[in-house]
């Protein structure tokens, strides 16, 4: 429609949200070339292995590579197959399940979606809304999909999630947990699949997320500033190398990225077979109790995370070591904040771990 109304570059018919994200960054930094930040990389790999983990929250300063890492992982993953022309990225086996009732027999390969949700996003843009043009010209009610549809089968990244309107965060977490977007508005009643890995980031110094919302994230990561000078210099060197020859740089890291990819692939296949011994389950429950993590989500995530980690490492069953390394990620954001206690959450978990496993 805008082809008729506007300039030459608008020939493509795109929805408002689509326009915002249609352009991928010119060249994505290879995932394996990211210096340091082991914890963040591990959390992202786990989320990519088992989507049921339910989102990763990244705490940390600006300019520490949060969005670079998330973007890089999305770009590393192999393209997905989707029904041609489907605005909901329907997989071929789900053909016709979306509100568009996509019917094309042809499929296309598309890169794993990566949607960068801007701070000012309104419900309209996130959920989708009435297609105004169709309504005006044909008097028909049609649904104009929003960013959630766009993110289906991919990643939804929200920078400064702590500053986003609470009700939008609520809504996102709800959809992320159910894997389905249900719209009841503007006289529309639509549902469509919206399965994505939710990645939030923010700096607690600038305002914090409500504890209820934090709890709904599966894993949380504390990103640290690269503290050694050598690390910083290495970052400078790699960024420069990438800037000078993005292709050459990508080629150089291709083998490593492929390794990551194979690792995720193998882990996904192995996941159902990984055993979780009863002893580990008991330890997970005890640990959650010891640190005072409210609710059941903590121990469930602990178990799922440890299993995904074991799968990634190619281990046949979950061990105490897996549990120990996943515990800070799975629990630190669920601890009840005691305002008078200065001890950080991570330290409290480490203390509990030391007490339990010595």
């Amino acid at each position, binding site marked *: 429609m805008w082809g008729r109304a*506007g300039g030459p570059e608008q020939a493509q018919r795109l929805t408002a949200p689509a326009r915002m994200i249609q352009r991928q960054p010119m060249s994505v930094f290879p995932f394996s070339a990211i210096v340091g930040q082991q914890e963040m990389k591990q959390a992202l790999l786990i989320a990519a292995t088992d989507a049921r983990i339910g989102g990763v929250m990244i705490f940390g300063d600006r300019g520490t590579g949060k969005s670079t890492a998330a973007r890089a992982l999305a770009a590393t993953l192999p393209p997905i197959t989707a029904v041609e022309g489907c605005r909901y990225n329907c997989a071929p086996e789900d053909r016709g399940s979306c509100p568009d009732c996509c019917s094309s027999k042809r499929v296309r390969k598309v890169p794993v979606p990566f949607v960068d949700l801007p701070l000012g996003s309104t419900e309209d843009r996130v959920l989708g809304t009435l297609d105004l043009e169709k309504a005006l010209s044909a008097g028909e009610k049609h649904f104009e999909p929003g960013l959630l549809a766009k993110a289906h089968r991919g990643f939804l990244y929200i920078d400064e999630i702590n500053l986003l309107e609470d009700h939008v965060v609520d809504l996102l977490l709800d959809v992320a947990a159910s894997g389905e977007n249900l719209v009841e508005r503007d006289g529309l009643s639509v549902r469509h699949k919206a399965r994505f890995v939710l990645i939030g980031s923010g700096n607690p110094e600038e*305002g914090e997320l409500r504890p209820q919302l934090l709890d709904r994230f599966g894993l949380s990561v504390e990103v640290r500033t690269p503290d050694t000078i050598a*690390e910083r210099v290495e970052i400078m060197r790699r960024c420069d190398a990438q800037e000078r020859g993005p292709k050459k740089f990508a080629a150089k890291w291709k083998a490593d990225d492929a390794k990551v990819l194979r690792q995720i692939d193998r882990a996904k296949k192995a996941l159902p077979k990984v055993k979780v011994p009863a002893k580990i389950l008991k330890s997970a429950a005890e640990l959650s109790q010891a640190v005072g993590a409210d609710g059941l989500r903590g121990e469930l995530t602990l178990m799922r995370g440890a299993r995904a980690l074991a799968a990634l490492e190619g281990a046949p069953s979950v061990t105490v070591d897996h549990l120990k390394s996943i515990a800070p990620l799975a629990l630190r954001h669920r601890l009840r904040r005691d305002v008078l206690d200065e001890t950080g959450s991570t330290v409290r978990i480490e203390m509990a771990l030391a007490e339990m496993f010595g």
Partner: protein
Amino acid sequence: MSEDRSIADSLLAAQAFAQSPHAFGGIVLRGAGPVRDRLLAQMLPALEPRMPVVRVPVSADAEQMLGGLDLTQTLATGRAAHRPGLIERARGGVAIVSMAERTDRGIAALLAQSIDRGDCAVILLDDGLDADEAPLATLLERAAFHCDFSRCRTLDFEWAEEWQNAKRARPLLKGQREALALTAAALGIHSVRPVLMAESYARGIAGVRGLGKAGEPELEAAIRLVLAPRATQRPEMEPPEPPEPPPPDGAPDTAIDQGEEEQQSQDLPLEDLLLAAAAASIPDHILDGIDKGLTRPKGGSGGQSGNRESSSRRGRPLGARPGIPGDGRKLALIDTLRAAAPWQAIRRENAGDSNTAGQSLYIRKSDLRIRHFEQRQESLTIFAVDASGSSAMARLAEAKGAVELMLAQAHVKRSQVALIAFRHSGAEILLPPTRSLTRARRALSGLPGGGGTPLAAGLLEARLMADASGKRGQTPMIALLTDGKANVTLDGEPDRARAMAEAENAAKGIAAAGHHAVVIDISPRPREEAAALAEALRGKYLALPYAGSAAMVEAIESVAESVSA
């Protein structure tokens, strides 16, 4: 830093930015005035022929940024016609953000996204005066150059085109990179972006000077313009940690860089040199902020989110709801159209034989939507705590506890808390208005006690903060925790009588300014001084001889509620 150099630096930075805006993300031009206007007037002709340049007004909302319906077109044709937003129009070019210190968070986020994608670069016109009036950190972070014109008096500078054809110098040597990284670490810069930008600038400027590689002067210039304005701490002249030789993890791509790393040894003097340059060139308003304890990563707070009140007249757009326009309520055209849209076909049929046939749109009264705005009604509780020797140390611990408890509740209520302490000879802001638990805890753990009671100084500081927050649209409340026994004057002299008189005056001033206040008497045996103070403040008086933090919070809350009721 001498004035000449500062304007020369700014000019160079502006030229570097104009040559390749997208490589540098943005430039901050702080300080409104003829100097900035002149620079801008010289910069724009260098940009405009090559790329789109758009202006983002302070009032811009998400729709203006992202585009929306073109109403005239839409109404004329009965079809939705799109009008491109500012983000789209700035694609491949530059967006000039006026009054950047007032930019709304949502708008800043959209711009930041666009910068990250390499779509546009920004020129931030920062009219801020105080240390805490600055563009949002999201934008500052992405703009390489921070130029300050507030001290510049000279208009004697000329734009040179030498940048246009200059070739960038070779990448920095390893030792130079180490020096840059060390300097950044010494200045307390956590982000990696500035270091990358500094390198980029040093190479660019070396190219302009016809050099094959950047040397000390270039690195110094990069530090002055890119790193120093981002300082969050005064650098210690001894670098904290020696550089460690090998890179930490995985396969270093030696193939690419082997060539340049030649024989460059650990060049320690260079680091010292750069650090000295950095220390000398931190702008005054940043130093001011560091000293005031605004230790957050630099940046203003812009439009904070908080409690909001919806209104149909002013504030930020919130959406639309059914209603009849008029009496200050504005019609929300697009939402009206949206409401009318589904019925067009039916209405057209029904209207088939009447004389309105041929009309392209049928809108009924029930379709009308009015705009709905939100107004920020955030509260700020300013704790002014008497940390003198006369308030026993134990009371101080309770006061700390009360502040933290209030803050924990602010989580839910999304209101803010600030902390001022007065002792010895003056008052200091320990915690600027914040909602962050992390920062509050840090500030509180450093709250020392002892010395005299400069009550008047504490009151004045609280008043200043209350005034400032009132201007930002917040509702401030001052909670004064003291025994009311002032014994240090405003000039720091120990004179009880004068100190009491000054305190009374300051208290009356607060009352006259209309700020709400509550006095909590924290002396073990309450006497009339604190009560008299409460009277002068026209505030409530609460004697809490043995109450703990929780009781204190309850008391303050009850006053706050009665105030707002």
